[in-house]
């Protein structure tokens, strides 16, 4: 029992270790000793022998089994490349280990990085441009969902290919909905939901109408969509922080009111559990949880697009694949072959059906298996239908180191402590601006 970390503690730990390591990596180390993983000859050109590559991923449980199955299918589909899948813990641990591996020269060839991590490694020059490699394996970027693909593009160059991508959805408990006499659909606007909500609350306090996650379970991700809905944003693309924008503050005030003034929403560290247990009637949560919730809920589960306010707003999330720039050319090409396979229209369908992540290819939606699957799982179709309306998250959350937690803690102060949004978000704005400084410098060095 000596070392158990909460996610937050781990993150903090990584800020200490990882920050220094990324900085050191920026300094441009040249190769030291040969790496552990690449003790095989760097170039394998004899015909008949396979190129062996290492793939670091973050999925465990059912998702891990699906990821292993994908690697196995690839290895059996051809005889030029053999991928070894190595589980490295969750997104944070994988990124931390990659940071250490960059210093020690023990890097893999292809790596799964989450939305908040890939950018830092791009700045450090640790992941490579993919366009040349994609051309060599005839990868058609036009068939990828543009909103997902473009998130991994810098200066017109692809660095991060969408793989396990999710979006938030509005989940509701159909039994409670029926009991309250509400129409069987998600609310179209927050104004409409504010009218519905009092009917969904149980007066003895055993049930709230809606649940917010806490900072550690990524409230800043779900709030991202709400901020857009209210016409605000976290930051502009040039890293100007806009947390004190009147519309951003309006969204924060709305969040505070749901819990403290209207009292129909609660902050919960374990949203999925409360939803399945019936302690909350609705929530916004990742599409990735859909299959698990449907399998374990004792009531029919309804889903819908996120509610609108002045606009519609819904962020994307999840992880994508990148190729390590230090890997030898031949391994990079082999890694690209794997990425092309894992995200081809058929594989993307298999992956989406077994995990609940979004199909990253446009043509996947037209495959007979997918059409059949949509018929059986109309809720999943709702998630996919919402996809074209989503957009990439603001730099403040995904590109600023620890930005997610800075915003999340600010929201906790507003919702739990009842502090005024304007003063809290002014603090958050300052903190984000400060945290963005080193990134802007690196960005200037890398992109000019």
């Amino acid at each position: 029992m000596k070392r158990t970390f909460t996610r937050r503690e781990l993150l903090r730990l990584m800020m200490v270790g990882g920050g220094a390591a990324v900085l050191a990596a920026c300094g441009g180390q040249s190769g030291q000793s040969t790496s552990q993983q690449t003790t095989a000859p760097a170039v394998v050109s004899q015909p008949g022998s396979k190129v062996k590559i290492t793939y670091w991923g973050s999925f465990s449980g059912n998702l891990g089994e699906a990821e292993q199955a994908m690697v196995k299918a690839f290895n059996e589909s051809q005889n030029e490349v053999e991928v070894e899948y190595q589980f490295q813990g969750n997104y944070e641990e994988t990124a931390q280990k990659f940071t250490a591996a960059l210093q020690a020269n023990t890097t893999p060839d292809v790596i799964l990085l989450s939305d908040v991590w890939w950018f830092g490694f791009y700045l450090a020059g640790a992941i490579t441009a993919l366009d040349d490699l994609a051309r060599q394996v005839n990868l058609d970027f036009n068939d990828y969902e543009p909103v997902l693909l473009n998130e991994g593009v810098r200066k017109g160059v692809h660095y991060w290919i969408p793989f396990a991508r999710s979006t938030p959805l509005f989940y509701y408990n159909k039994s409670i909905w029926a009991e309250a006499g509400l129409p069987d659909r998600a609310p179209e606007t927050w104004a409409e939901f504010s009218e519905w909500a009092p009917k969904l609350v149980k007066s003895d306090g055993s049930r709230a109408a809606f649940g917010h996650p806490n900072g550690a379970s990524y409230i800043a991700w779900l709030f991202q969509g709400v901020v857009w809905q209210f016409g605000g944003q976290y930051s502009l693309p040039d890293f100007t922080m806009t947390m004190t924008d009147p519309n951003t503050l309006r969204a924060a005030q709305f969040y505070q009111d749901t819990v403290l003034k209207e009292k129909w929403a609660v902050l919960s560290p374990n949203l999925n559990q409360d939803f399945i247990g019936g302690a909350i009637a609705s929530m916004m949560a990742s599409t990735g949880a859909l299959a698990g919730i449907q399998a374990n809920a004792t009531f029919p589960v309804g889903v819908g697009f996120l509610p609108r306010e002045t606009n519609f707003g819904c962020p994307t999330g999840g992880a994508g694949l990148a190729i390590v720039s230090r890997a030898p050319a031949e391994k990079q090409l082999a890694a690209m072959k794997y990425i092309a396979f894992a995200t081809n229209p058929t594989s993307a369908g298999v992956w989406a059906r077994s995990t609940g992540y979004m199909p990253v290819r446009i043509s996947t939606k037209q495959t007979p298996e997918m059409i059949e699957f949509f018929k059986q799982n109309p809720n999943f179709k709702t998630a996919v239908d919402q996809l074209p309306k989503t957009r990439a998250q603001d730099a403040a959350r995904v590109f600023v180191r620890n930005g997610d937690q800075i915003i999340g803690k600010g929201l906790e102060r507003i919702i739990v402590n009842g502090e005024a949004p304007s003063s809290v978000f002014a603090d958050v704005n300052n903190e984000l601006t400060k945290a963005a400084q080193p990134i802007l410098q690196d960005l200037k060095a890398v992109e000019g």
Partner: protein
Amino acid sequence: MATINELEQAIKPVVVRRRHIPLSLLGWRIAGYLTLIVAVLIIGLPVYWTVMASFKETREIYSLPVTWWPAKPTFNNFSAAWEAAPFGRYYLNSFITTFFGAGIEVILALFSAYALAYLRFPRKDLVFLLLLAALMVPTEITIVPNYLTVARLGWINTYQGIIIPGAAIAYGTFLLRQAFMAVPHEILEAAHVDGAGHLRILFSVVAPITQPAIVTMALLSIVSKWNEFLWPLIVTNTTDMRTLPIGVFWLRNSEGLTNWGVVMAGSLFLIIPVLITFLFAQRAIVEGMTAGAVKG
């Protein structure tokens, strides 16, 4: 014998007066028992929950209000956990790394504590101060430098890579030095006179007397090696080198819903061997204490 008679006399009045305990004393006693009960609940409840959850279906675990007894007890979680990952291999790796890791740690601690407690050498205080300083460094901070060292030695994904960086821990030396200091000087001098060397004194005189401290230290070491998660995760890459805690972690879902029944079953795989070790070791701790008391 005289001590025992005195003891009996000291105890007797309490026994006789039992029915007429003054109110204040009764109050203290009730408070004591309440604290005991609270402590047992705080420690025991999570364990109880783990055991019960491992026999429940996932749906039942997620349902509110919570059930304290599985409605439909099932063994499926255990087979599901066992099949989800190569737990046989994890057991082997955990046994190897714990046995050698804790073994080396205990031996190093024994020798270094002996030197610090009994030998005279220059700058001994400085050495002890350094040791205390090492005690204050959180292991998390040493992870990155340790990783770099191990990687340059080519020890990534090997047993020595898991074991060696954690083999010498300052707290073991510190704990045993304190215990050794408490051994009466006369006994050591008697052993000297009888012509015993350092090794003989350590293993035939000091070690038996301080057995409870040594066993306690060994136990702490075993438990911490057995449960260690972050270091083995970082220093290994492939499934066949991984240890049990990583196996349990693998059962959890990184996103979406976790199948808690299976995770709890996996946790039991992890807990049970330590529990058995503890039961055996506990006997040694108690025996050590009584042995010392009677002889003394």
